[in-house]
């Protein structure tokens, strides 16, 4: 009769060689850095928010949606330009000084022949998701934390559109069915 303790011993034994290499000082430093970064983000967001309200009240905020530039207090979080072979090059900037206007990005993408749903702080998909994302979007994260991607509109399947979810620390991309119910999550 094989007892559970034999099995338990075998499972324990299988990982007995594993040991954490990270020192506790590194763990505590990482925690401190994360806390500081969160505080900085909150402070910067608060300052930028106040400045934007003040400028808006004075009627000074003007946005060039096509290029993604805004004046003064906040910088638009994207730049979009023509890429090779009919593609479009999109750069998403990250940081408290940037504010993404999802409607502006949606319009700019549409002008490049890219139907898209753009959301901030949530990502949306449909069930099922169309295949082919890897053919539509290629990209990488730049060292500054900005995200640079190339979008190939010709590869977007008929009836599909690109779903872009913009978050402070990451960005999600997916293909969704147009006119299908969307499921969004923060």
């Amino acid at each position, binding site marked *: 009769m094989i007892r559970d303790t*034999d099995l338990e011993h075998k499972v324990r034994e*299988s990982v007995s060689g594993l040991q954490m290499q990270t020192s506790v000082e590194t763990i505590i430093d990482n925690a401190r850095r994360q806390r500081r970064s969160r505080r900085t983000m909150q402070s910067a967001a608060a300052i930028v928010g106040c400045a934007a309200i003040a400028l808006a009240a004075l009627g000074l905020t003007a946005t060039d949606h096509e290029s993604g530039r805004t004046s003064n207090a906040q910088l638009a979080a994207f730049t979009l330009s023509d890429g090779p072979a009919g593609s479009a090059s999109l750069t998403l900037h990250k940081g408290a000084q940037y504010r993404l206007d999802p409607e502006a990005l949606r319009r700019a993408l549409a002008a490049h022949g890219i139907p898209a749903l753009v959301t901030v702080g949530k990502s949306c998909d449909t069930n099922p998701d169309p295949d082919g994302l890897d053919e539509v979007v290629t990209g990488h994260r730049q060292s500054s934390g900005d995200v640079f991607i190339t979008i190939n509109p010709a590869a977007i399947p008929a009836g599909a559109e690109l779903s872009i979810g913009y978050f402070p620390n990451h960005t999600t991309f997916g293909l969704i069915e147009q006119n299908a119910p969307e499921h969004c999550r923060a």
Partner: protein
Amino acid sequence: MRRDGVRDARAEFVEFYETNKDACLRAVAVSVADRDLAEELVGEAFARAWTGWAKVRRHASPAAWIVRVALNTRVSWWRRRRREVPLAHHDTAHDDLKSGLDRDVTAALLRLPQRQREVVALRFLLDLDTDTTARALGIAPGTVTAHLARATSVLRRQLLSPERITEVTQ
């Protein structure tokens, strides 16, 4: 006075880390089947624990909290990875078993459903009882028992079958 309190909390956290880090790493490693990823996830969970140490230290099983947070972080990364093209390098490729894990056992564990694997990890590697495991995973104690029974039945067949024992003794 406050500085003394901070020093005490730090000493307590350091002791907690040194006592539990390897068990937590092993419990997460059998769930994700990747030693480096497990180290990163457990490190992140411990960093969060230090940030909220006043609360975490009062948890019924702070080590179970670490494992749960590490596994939830993994789920979050996985969800992000699935759809984020700018390319986090954390892949959940289960066939890429890293060093430090027994290949046969890891392969058998990976064939279990995720929840059964988590129950095995918490019961066998963190030595938690049924109730604490249930609280850590947010499921009923009866469900823990059922998952463990199914998992051990499968693992016994795969790892301790008579054929295998015969092979070893020949």
